């Protein structure tokens, strides 16, 4: 097994972009500091050197114009990848994302395609405080016209990023900042993971746990612990949050009769609410207990690690949540 090629999550992103750009001249990247510097997270490293400054473009600090650049170029035939450094900055470009990119095809009566990929770094855990740590994916998933992707590991990153770039609708690829260094096997050849297909990361019979991004990994840790006590969790990572793979989720719920949804985002109004509601609607009679949700408390992300570590769900709190659920009649 020493020959298994490993890549980090950030490296897998980089390779997906590189391979796509090699194959299609219409693809370009634009964003702040992504050119000469390779991006503040290093995810665009080496691309400008390889493809030139016309295809890997350093932009001004102008998030609205960055997304607009992508929209205008996409609707006139290119395949842009535009970067909004931190997910929190989506708020700065929100009009272009929500009122323009998401709706343009529809408003034009279908006479447009929008092969636009927006990449951004999400999630907390780096003491980056309230404006650099948010998980805003639920907001994006509420907007018809967008697709939202959130990989939990290097393998999925490469396959999903490839799918985003090939997609003809606007996609938002969220890279979890704390997963950037995660390393695992990633095939060198190009491959695509279809959008909208969940991944059953671990099969189990006692309880279904749905988690994405970094929380999928925390859930796997919790699941291993519980397995030692004979509790077998089925862990499902939706991978694509919009469109959501409702079928896979509901099927598992019907099998295990108990479901927990976990995310890093604030619980109130988070994606967990939608997932739980769909499960209740489609598998009510199979459930032994209401679908449980774990998410962050209703506050901005606090700066101090002493607070942030309790703010975020982790393997221990997920394990406790699962035990709690399993104990319910």
């Amino acid at each position, binding site marked *: 097994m020493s020959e298994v090629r490993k890549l980090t999550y950030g490296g897998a992103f980089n390779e997906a972009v590189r391979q796509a750009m090699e194959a299609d001249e219409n693809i370009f990247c634009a964003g702040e500091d992504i050119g000469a510097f390779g991006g503040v997270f290093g995810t665009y490293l080496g691309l400008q050197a390889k493809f030139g400054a016309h295809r890997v473009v350093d932009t001004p600090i*102008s998030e609205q114009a960055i997304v607009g650049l992508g929209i205008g170029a996409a609707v006139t*035939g290119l395949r842009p990848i535009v970067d909004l450094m931190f997910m929190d900055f989506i708020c700065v470009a929100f009009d272009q994302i929500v009122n323009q990119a998401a709706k343009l095809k529809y408003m*034009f*009566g279908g006479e447009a395609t929008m092969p636009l990929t927006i990449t951004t770094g999400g999630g907390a855990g780096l003491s980056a405080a309230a404006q650099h740590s948010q998980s805003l994916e639920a907001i994006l998933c509420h907007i018809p016209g967008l697709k939202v992707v959130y990989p939990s590991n290097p393998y999925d990153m490469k396959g999903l990023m490839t799918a985003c770039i090939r997609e003809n609708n606007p996609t938002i690829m969220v890279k979890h900042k704390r997963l950037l260094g995660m390393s695992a096997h990633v095939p060198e050849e190009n491959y695509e993971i279809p959008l909208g297909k969940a991944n059953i990361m671990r099969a189990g019979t006692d309880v279904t746990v749905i988690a994405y991004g970094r929380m999928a990994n925390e859930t796997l840790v919790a699941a291993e612990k519980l397995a030692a006590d004979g509790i077998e969790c089925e862990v499902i990572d939706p991978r694509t949050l919009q*469109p959501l793979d409702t079928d896979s989720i509901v099927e598992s719920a019907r099998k295990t009769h108990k479901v927990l949804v976990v995310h890093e985002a604030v619980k109130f109004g988070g994606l967990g609410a939608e997932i739980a509601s769909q499960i209740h609607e489609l598998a009510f009679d199979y459930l032994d207990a209401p679908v449980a949700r774990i998410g962050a408390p209703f506050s901005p992300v606090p700066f101090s690690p002493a607070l942030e570590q309790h703010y975020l769900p982790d393997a221990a709190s997920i394990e406790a949540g699962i035990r709690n659920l399993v104990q319910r009649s």
Partner: protein
Amino acid sequence: MDLSPPVQFDLHRRMVRIRVFEEAAGRLAEANKLPGFLHLYVGEEAVAAGVCAALNDDDHITSTHRGHGHLVAKGGDFNRMMAELMGKSTGMCKGKGGSMHISDLSLGMLGANGIVGAGSPIAVGAAFANKYRGRGQVAVAFFGDGATNIGAFHEAANMACALHLPIVFACENNEYGEFTPRSATMAITDIVDRAAGYGMPGVIIDGMDVVAVHEATLEAVARARAGGGPSLIEAKTYRFYNHHGIQNLGLKYRPDDEVAQWKERDPIFTFEDRMIENGTMTRDRVDEIWAGLRGEIEVAIKFAEDSPLPTPDQILVDVYTSMTGAAQ
């Protein structure tokens, strides 16, 4: 007037097409036959016509809430435009966009826009793609005086200059944003004063003079095509009707004599007088042109009225390229 007669005819025709379309739309709106908001372009025809006559079909424009004028100037089809305003399935946007989102990709018209200023960043994207492809296409962003106060315009102007893109920023300064005069919302008089802050040339022109607009645009477009980067054109103009619709319904916000003075400078009638004076045109020919286009608009209204409404099963169509897997 150095422009050749065919160019003059073209400019005139574009203006009259706008006027005829807009007047018809206004009448229909007053008769409650058009749903939604309607922002008429009447009075500002010289701007859209003068600019668009300097463009090719594969050049791009982005527009505003006041968007039919731009689309007509770019060559928009009366039938499908009128059908769109009526929300019919034969409309430019199959009834899903309406007045505020009217568009025609085949003419490079990247949409009217309901969000003030939001078109400019999109024009920057089109200009980027045009430079990227290297086929000499340019993009034009239309926007109002009020729109220059919004962040999206600023970011677009700066980015276009930083990336040295083939783009023209065309400002329709009609001295009002909705019901509020420019003087209440900015401390400058001329929008062109903003150009230097981005590092692009800017020029003020009489937006009631289609020749002036056209010549300034030719220069800016030539610069853009030659790799000379962005320019800003400020056309001083005026809308003859209300912010939306025809009549003032709420409080009066513009002095009567101001409106009257501008109307005296009607961009179409003054141009016709000039052409007739110069012998390029006769009064009869002018009347013929109006009559011909008035006939066309009647056909378009009939086409639109006779067209079917979209059916409810169309609601979820075209949200995405395919409906597979989409939420309901």
